């Protein structure tokens, strides 16, 4: 269901998101630098996910965009206008929090029309628009309920309707699905994507769940320690990670020690092309994706000997862990038809795809 009635707002015309730009944004908390110079440019209507482990600064970046955090240097531009000095309530943004953000003493529809009330929209008008927004998220019949009477997923839908009813230029979502059940999460993230696409709102979505980020975003920015490590379309990040951190964070990888020789990495006698920056010759750790390894037969050329450690059935495929000579574990994704038994000897073949690698330091690999 899409919103059909025309709307009157104080912001840009309905359906046109704003351009959002972060330039050299720095934020310090005392001695700790939460954001170390973030650069990000978003096109109107684009859906960008900020992905990273806790403490990487993704939430800080989002809150800086919203104005709930002030920044120490750099600029934040919405539609080309620097909003760093503009207080939160004048930035014309919509924000969905992780939890507990619905006002407990108001009914659902009163919650949703709150933003309209702040913009002095007339009573009948705002009631109508709030109800439409609720229908957009599938909760049209629940207007007179209170927050504590709704499930987690329903509460977040209400929060979404509330944030969108005023047609903000930018929508910010701070881990909106993290507190929900797995199934509800998947359902709701698709709805969020559909709604933001229909409305054409520029959206920033913060999450620590890489599957979620890859599934919904137009572009994903992987963050670590206050910096953006890589930003690109999901496929790009997966297939060509810029560095080992990204390769490790996005999708599954196995780490196999090897050696860099002449710009290629040699793992158990097989030479593989390297992704990313060239590494000096010497010991390194190769990061290999499960789908880049295949089961082989004993006599095959380039077969590597391994022992089955454990095997998991995942519905449409199997993922099996093998232990190689030297002790490292290699995860392999294969057909459900093959059923390796624990303790069995097996043979594996590395497909000739590019791998990310990192240098082995004296303590640990530099991931």
């Amino acid at each position, binding site marked *: 269901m899409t919103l059909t009635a025309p709307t009157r707002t104080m912001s840009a015309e309905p359906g046109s998101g704003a351009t959002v730009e972060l330039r050299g944004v720095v934020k310090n908390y005392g001695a700790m630098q939460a954001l170390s110079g973030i650069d990000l440019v978003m096109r109107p209507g684009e859906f960008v996910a900020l992905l990273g482990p*806790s403490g990487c600064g993704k939430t800080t970046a989002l809150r800086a965009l919203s104005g*709930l*955090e*002030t920044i120490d240097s750099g600029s934040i531009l919405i539609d080309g206008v620097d909003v760093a000095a503009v*207080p939160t309530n004048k930035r014309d943004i919509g924000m969905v929090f992780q939890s507990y953000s619905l006002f407990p003493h108001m009914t659902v529809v009163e919650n949703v029309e709150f933003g309209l009330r702040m913009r002095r929209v007339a009573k009948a008008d705002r009631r109508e628009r709030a109800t439409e927004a609720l229908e957009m998220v599938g909760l049209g019949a629940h207007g007179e309920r209170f927050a504590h009477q709704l499930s987690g997923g329903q509460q977040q839908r209400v929060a979404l309707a509330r944030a969108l009813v005023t047609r903000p230029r930018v929508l910010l979502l701070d881990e909106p699905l993290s507190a929900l059940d797995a199934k509800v999460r998947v359902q709701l993230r698709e709805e969020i994507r559909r709604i933001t696409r229909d409305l054409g709102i520029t959206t920033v979505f913060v999450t620590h769940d890489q599957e979620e980020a890859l599934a919904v975003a137009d572009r994903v920015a992987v963050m670590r320690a206050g910096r953006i490590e890589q930003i690109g379309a999901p496929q790009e990040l997966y297939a060509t990670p810029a560095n080992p951190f990204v390769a490790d964070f996005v999708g599954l990888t196995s780490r196999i020690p090897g050696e860099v020789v002449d710009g290629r990495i040699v793992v158990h006698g097989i030479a593989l092309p390297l992704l990313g920056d060239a590494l000096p010759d010497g010991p390194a750790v190769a990061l290999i994706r499960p789908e880049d390894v295949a089961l082989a037969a004993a006599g095959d050329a380039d077969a590597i000997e391994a022992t089955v450690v454990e095997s998991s059935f995942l519905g449409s495929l199997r993922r099996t862990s093998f232990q190689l000579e030297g002790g490292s574990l290699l995860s392999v994704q294969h057909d459900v038809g093959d059923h390796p038994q624990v303790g069995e000897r097996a043979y594996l073949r590395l497909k000739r795809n590019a791998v990310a690698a990192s240098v082995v330091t004296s303590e640990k690999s530099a991931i």
Partner: protein
Amino acid sequence: MTKNAVRIGTEPNPVVRWVILGVVGVVFAFPILAMIEFTFRDGLSGAHTLDHWTGLVSEDAARTYRNLFTAIGNSLLLAVVTVAIVLVVLLPTMILVHLQFPRLKRVLEFVCIIPITVPAIVLVVGLAPVYAVVVRVFGGSIWTLAFAYGITVLPYAYRAIQSNLDAVDVVTLSEAGRTLSADWGRVLWFVLLPNLKRGVLAASFISVAVVLGEFTIASLLNRVNLQTALLQVGQSDPYVAIIFALLALLLAFLLLLSIGRLGRPRRSGSGS
């Protein structure tokens, strides 16, 4: 970050904050300061002296203030017995209900709140006949008053222990202990009580503070405790009375301050 909190309204403006706290602080400190000043007064002459304080540690002190010192001893004894009642009767019952009779939790809570609705002044009307019997059974010594005090402190002790019970998942801990083949005695001693230290100490300290300040029941049952003695002494020697009132206040303050410190989580360096 604090500036932003002020902007969106979650925190008050620092100026407003300190004006309010300052004004209220001064107004409330005033009577205490007046009491302190009073103890240094030299009669009506306007001069100041340490005599009232030094008189307490002089050689005649024990004799002159015998009644007062007895009364202090009484109050301390009562405090100890009351805490014993809390630990031996209330605490096990609360643990038992929490673990075994979850449906009775509301009932227990209700019972422990009754002493607020039935205040001491009402209770004492019905306590006199009960104490007539108590005196026959236990004798007329002062410690029997602790039975009534155990009731008076119920709401405070209950709340202190219950918040600890709620914060620590007692049910899961005892189940874990049981599956590790500990019997109930050991579960109680090795698993539960160490985790309930905070609530137990808080309940004990609050009980002591309440018992030291109790006047109504002691007075109307014609017993002697710190407060009744202070009132009596106050009529003849207000200086000593106020000195001891201040000391009692200080003791209670220190006790309650330590409860606050107990409540602080152990410093583990975690903070996000």
